[in-house]
Protein backbone atom coordinates (compact mmCIF):
# COMPACT_ATOMS: atom_id res chain seq x y z
CA UNK A 1 0.00 0.00 0.00
CA UNK A 2 1.25 3.45 -0.74
CA UNK A 3 2.28 5.34 2.35
CA UNK A 4 0.90 8.77 2.78
CA UNK A 5 4.27 10.35 2.31
CA UNK A 6 4.10 9.19 -1.29
CA UNK A 7 1.06 11.33 -1.90
CA UNK A 8 2.52 14.19 0.05
CA UNK A 9 5.74 14.04 -1.89
CA UNK A 10 3.81 13.94 -5.13
CA UNK A 11 1.83 16.91 -3.96
CA UNK A 12 5.00 18.77 -3.03
CA UNK A 13 6.43 18.01 -6.44
CA UNK A 14 3.25 19.17 -8.11
CA UNK A 15 3.32 22.32 -6.08
CA UNK A 16 6.92 22.99 -7.02
CA UNK A 17 6.21 22.39 -10.67
CA UNK A 18 3.33 24.78 -10.52
CA UNK A 19 5.46 27.30 -8.71
CA UNK A 20 8.29 26.92 -11.16
CA UNK A 21 5.89 27.43 -14.03
CA UNK A 22 4.30 30.42 -12.41
CA UNK A 23 7.67 31.91 -11.77
CA UNK A 24 9.40 31.25 -15.02
CA UNK A 25 6.78 31.50 -17.73
CA UNK A 26 6.16 34.77 -19.42
CA UNK A 27 2.66 34.14 -20.60
CA UNK A 28 -0.02 35.19 -18.16
CA UNK A 29 -2.24 32.24 -19.03
CA UNK A 30 0.51 29.83 -18.15
CA UNK A 31 1.13 31.61 -14.88
CA UNK A 32 -2.52 31.16 -14.11
CA UNK A 33 -2.26 27.50 -14.99
CA UNK A 34 0.73 27.21 -12.66
CA UNK A 35 -1.34 28.63 -9.86
CA UNK A 36 -4.08 26.15 -10.65
CA UNK A 37 -1.52 23.40 -10.34
CA UNK A 38 -0.50 24.66 -6.94
CA UNK A 39 -4.14 24.60 -5.89
CA UNK A 40 -4.40 21.06 -7.15
CA UNK A 41 -1.39 20.05 -5.12
CA UNK A 42 -3.17 21.35 -2.07
CA UNK A 43 -6.27 19.40 -3.06
CA UNK A 44 -4.26 16.21 -3.29
CA UNK A 45 -3.06 16.89 0.23
CA UNK A 46 -6.60 17.32 1.45
CA UNK A 47 -7.71 14.07 -0.07
CA UNK A 48 -4.66 12.22 1.21
CA UNK A 49 -5.09 13.53 4.70
CA UNK A 50 -8.75 12.67 4.60
CA UNK A 51 -7.97 9.14 3.51
CA UNK A 52 -5.19 8.59 5.96
CA UNK A 53 -6.59 10.69 8.74
CA UNK A 54 -8.30 9.27 11.80
CA UNK A 55 -11.81 10.37 10.86
CA UNK A 56 -12.49 9.71 7.21
CA UNK A 57 -16.21 9.46 7.89
CA UNK A 58 -16.25 13.18 8.69
CA UNK A 59 -15.73 13.99 4.99
CA UNK A 60 -13.97 17.22 5.88
CA UNK A 61 -11.12 16.65 3.48
CA UNK A 62 -13.49 15.90 0.64
CA UNK A 63 -15.52 18.96 1.40
CA UNK A 64 -12.45 21.07 1.45
CA UNK A 65 -11.36 19.68 -1.88
CA UNK A 66 -14.76 20.33 -3.39
CA UNK A 67 -14.78 23.90 -2.19
CA UNK A 68 -11.24 24.38 -3.33
CA UNK A 69 -12.15 23.11 -6.78
CA UNK A 70 -15.03 25.55 -6.99
CA UNK A 71 -12.81 28.38 -5.88
CA UNK A 72 -10.28 27.33 -8.48
CA UNK A 73 -12.95 27.38 -11.14
CA UNK A 74 -14.02 30.85 -10.12
CA UNK A 75 -10.43 31.96 -10.03
CA UNK A 76 -9.76 30.58 -13.47
CA UNK A 77 -12.80 32.28 -14.92
CA UNK A 78 -12.01 35.64 -13.43
CA UNK A 79 -8.29 35.33 -14.09
CA UNK A 80 -8.76 34.45 -17.70
CA UNK A 81 -11.20 37.25 -18.26
CA UNK A 82 -8.75 39.65 -16.68
CA UNK A 83 -6.14 38.38 -19.07
CA UNK A 84 -8.52 38.93 -21.94
CA UNK A 85 -9.28 42.43 -20.74
CA UNK A 86 -5.61 43.20 -20.39
CA UNK A 87 -4.94 41.74 -23.78
CA UNK A 88 -7.48 44.01 -25.32
CA UNK A 89 -5.63 46.94 -23.89
CA UNK A 90 -2.03 46.08 -24.32
CA UNK A 91 -2.21 43.48 -27.11
CA UNK A 92 0.00 41.14 -25.22
CA UNK A 93 -0.21 38.36 -22.71
CA UNK A 94 3.45 38.65 -21.93
CA UNK A 95 3.97 39.46 -18.29
CA UNK A 96 7.33 41.05 -19.01
CA UNK A 97 5.57 43.66 -21.08
CA UNK A 98 2.62 44.02 -18.79
CA UNK A 99 4.29 46.34 -16.38
CA UNK A 100 2.31 49.44 -16.70
CA UNK A 101 -0.82 50.18 -14.75
CA UNK A 102 -1.97 52.56 -17.43
CA UNK A 103 -4.60 51.43 -19.87
Amino acid at each position, binding site marked *: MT*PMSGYLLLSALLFSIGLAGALTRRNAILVLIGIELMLNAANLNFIAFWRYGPHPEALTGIMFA*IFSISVAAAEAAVGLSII*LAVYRHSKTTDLDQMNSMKG
Partner: protein
Amino acid sequence: MTITFLLLAATTITGTAAAMSLKNLVHCVLALTLGLVSLAALYLQLGAQFVGFTQILVYVGAVAILAAFAIMMTRSAEPAVLTGSSSFRVSGALIALVVFAVLGWAVWSGTGALAVLGPEPEAPVNEIGVALMHRFVLPLEIIGLLLTAALIGAGILAMDETRRTK
Protein backbone atom coordinates in the same frame (compact mmCIF):
# COMPACT_ATOMS: atom_id res chain seq x y z
CA MET B 1 4.03 1.98 -3.31
CA THR B 2 1.74 0.31 -5.69
CA ILE B 3 2.35 0.23 -9.36
CA THR B 4 -0.84 2.08 -10.06
CA PHE B 5 0.22 4.88 -7.83
CA LEU B 6 3.61 5.08 -9.45
CA LEU B 7 2.12 5.08 -12.90
CA LEU B 8 -0.42 7.71 -12.09
CA ALA B 9 2.12 9.82 -10.27
CA ALA B 10 4.42 9.55 -13.25
CA THR B 11 1.73 10.69 -15.70
CA THR B 12 0.69 13.46 -13.38
CA ILE B 13 4.21 14.74 -13.07
CA THR B 14 4.89 14.32 -16.77
CA GLY B 15 1.71 16.08 -17.73
CA THR B 16 2.12 18.99 -15.40
CA ALA B 17 5.83 19.35 -16.04
CA ALA B 18 5.13 19.39 -19.74
CA ALA B 19 2.37 21.90 -19.17
CA MET B 20 4.80 24.17 -17.49
CA SER B 21 7.65 23.76 -19.91
CA LEU B 22 6.35 23.27 -23.43
CA LYS B 23 6.68 26.06 -25.93
CA ASN B 24 3.31 25.92 -27.58
CA LEU B 25 0.57 27.08 -25.29
CA VAL B 26 -2.04 24.75 -26.68
CA HIS B 27 0.25 21.84 -26.04
CA CYS B 28 0.65 23.15 -22.53
CA VAL B 29 -3.07 23.09 -21.99
CA LEU B 30 -3.36 19.59 -23.42
CA ALA B 31 -0.53 18.35 -21.23
CA LEU B 32 -2.18 20.01 -18.27
CA THR B 33 -5.34 18.10 -19.05
CA LEU B 34 -3.41 14.87 -19.01
CA GLY B 35 -1.87 15.73 -15.66
CA LEU B 36 -5.17 16.73 -14.14
CA VAL B 37 -6.94 13.64 -15.38
CA SER B 38 -4.31 11.43 -13.82
CA LEU B 39 -4.63 13.46 -10.66
CA ALA B 40 -8.33 12.72 -10.76
CA ALA B 41 -7.45 9.06 -11.11
CA LEU B 42 -5.33 9.41 -7.99
CA TYR B 43 -8.34 10.77 -6.18
CA LEU B 44 -10.30 7.77 -7.33
CA GLN B 45 -7.56 5.56 -6.03
CA LEU B 46 -7.85 7.28 -2.71
CA GLY B 47 -11.55 6.49 -2.65
CA ALA B 48 -12.77 9.99 -3.34
CA GLN B 49 -14.95 9.20 -6.31
CA PHE B 50 -17.01 12.32 -6.21
CA VAL B 51 -14.05 14.62 -6.01
CA GLY B 52 -12.35 12.77 -8.81
CA PHE B 53 -15.24 13.18 -11.17
CA THR B 54 -15.74 16.75 -10.12
CA GLN B 55 -12.09 17.34 -10.84
CA ILE B 56 -12.51 16.04 -14.37
CA LEU B 57 -15.72 17.95 -14.89
CA VAL B 58 -14.34 21.23 -13.65
CA TYR B 59 -10.80 21.10 -14.86
CA VAL B 60 -11.15 19.33 -18.16
CA GLY B 61 -14.64 20.49 -18.94
CA ALA B 62 -14.24 24.05 -17.86
CA VAL B 63 -10.82 25.30 -16.88
CA ALA B 64 -8.86 23.71 -19.68
CA ILE B 65 -11.43 24.78 -22.24
CA LEU B 66 -11.46 28.26 -20.82
CA ALA B 67 -7.70 28.43 -20.99
CA ALA B 68 -7.79 27.18 -24.54
CA PHE B 69 -10.35 29.82 -25.37
CA ALA B 70 -8.21 32.48 -23.79
CA ILE B 71 -5.25 31.27 -25.80
CA MET B 72 -7.27 31.44 -28.96
CA MET B 73 -8.60 34.86 -28.23
CA THR B 74 -5.28 36.32 -27.26
CA ARG B 75 -3.57 34.65 -30.18
CA SER B 76 -0.95 33.32 -27.86
CA ALA B 77 -0.55 30.14 -29.82
CA GLU B 78 0.54 31.74 -33.04
CA PRO B 79 4.11 30.99 -33.93
CA ALA B 80 5.02 34.65 -33.75
CA VAL B 81 4.04 34.98 -30.15
CA LEU B 82 5.13 31.63 -28.82
CA THR B 83 6.77 32.62 -25.64
CA GLY B 84 9.51 31.05 -23.71
CA SER B 85 10.48 31.65 -20.19
CA SER B 86 10.71 34.97 -18.50
CA SER B 87 13.82 36.60 -17.25
CA PHE B 88 13.32 34.80 -13.96
CA ARG B 89 14.18 31.52 -15.55
CA VAL B 90 17.03 30.50 -13.33
CA SER B 91 15.99 32.12 -10.14
CA GLY B 92 12.44 30.87 -10.45
CA ALA B 93 13.47 27.33 -11.08
CA LEU B 94 15.87 27.56 -8.19
CA ILE B 95 13.23 28.82 -5.83
CA ALA B 96 10.85 26.10 -6.91
CA LEU B 97 13.59 23.56 -6.30
CA VAL B 98 14.23 24.92 -2.86
CA VAL B 99 10.52 24.87 -2.11
CA PHE B 100 10.38 21.27 -3.15
CA ALA B 101 13.43 20.42 -1.11
CA VAL B 102 11.99 22.03 1.97
CA LEU B 103 8.55 20.52 1.52
CA GLY B 104 10.03 17.15 0.74
CA TRP B 105 12.16 17.33 3.81
CA ALA B 106 9.14 18.30 5.83
CA VAL B 107 7.14 15.40 4.47
CA TRP B 108 9.96 13.01 4.92
CA SER B 109 10.58 13.98 8.47
CA GLY B 110 7.09 14.44 9.68
CA THR B 111 4.47 11.95 8.51
CA GLY B 112 5.21 8.97 10.63
CA ALA B 113 2.08 9.36 12.67
CA LEU B 114 -0.37 9.12 9.85
CA ALA B 115 1.30 6.46 7.78
CA VAL B 116 -1.22 3.81 8.74
CA LEU B 117 -4.01 3.36 6.25
CA GLY B 118 -7.41 2.79 7.78
CA PRO B 119 -10.13 0.75 6.17
CA GLU B 120 -11.56 2.01 2.92
CA PRO B 121 -13.75 4.89 3.99
CA GLU B 122 -17.22 5.29 2.63
CA ALA B 123 -17.88 8.53 0.88
CA PRO B 124 -21.19 7.98 -0.85
CA VAL B 125 -22.59 10.84 -2.78
CA ASN B 126 -25.71 11.26 -0.70
CA GLU B 127 -23.64 11.69 2.42
CA ILE B 128 -21.64 14.37 0.73
CA GLY B 129 -24.89 16.02 -0.19
CA VAL B 130 -26.24 15.72 3.31
CA ALA B 131 -23.04 17.12 4.74
CA LEU B 132 -23.12 19.98 2.26
CA MET B 133 -26.63 20.84 3.29
CA HIS B 134 -26.07 20.64 7.00
CA ARG B 135 -22.61 20.94 8.40
CA PHE B 136 -21.20 22.83 5.49
CA VAL B 137 -24.18 24.89 4.52
CA LEU B 138 -22.54 28.19 5.34
CA PRO B 139 -19.42 27.52 3.26
CA LEU B 140 -21.68 26.22 0.53
CA GLU B 141 -23.64 29.42 0.46
CA ILE B 142 -20.48 31.47 0.54
CA ILE B 143 -19.09 29.46 -2.34
CA GLY B 144 -22.33 29.97 -4.18
CA LEU B 145 -22.04 33.67 -3.64
CA LEU B 146 -18.43 33.61 -4.73
CA LEU B 147 -19.24 31.71 -7.88
CA THR B 148 -22.05 34.08 -8.71
CA ALA B 149 -19.78 37.03 -8.18
CA ALA B 150 -17.09 35.39 -10.25
CA LEU B 151 -19.55 34.66 -13.02
CA ILE B 152 -20.79 38.21 -13.15
CA GLY B 153 -17.32 39.63 -12.78
CA ALA B 154 -15.89 37.46 -15.49
CA GLY B 155 -18.75 38.37 -17.74
CA ILE B 156 -18.25 42.06 -17.21
CA LEU B 157 -14.53 41.79 -17.64
CA ALA B 158 -14.76 39.82 -20.80
CA MET B 159 -17.44 42.02 -22.26
CA ASP B 160 -16.38 44.24 -25.06
CA GLU B 161 -15.29 47.51 -23.60
CA THR B 162 -17.08 49.60 -26.14
CA ARG B 163 -20.25 47.78 -25.26
CA ARG B 164 -19.58 48.13 -21.57
CA THR B 165 -19.26 51.87 -21.66
CA LYS B 166 -22.38 52.25 -23.70
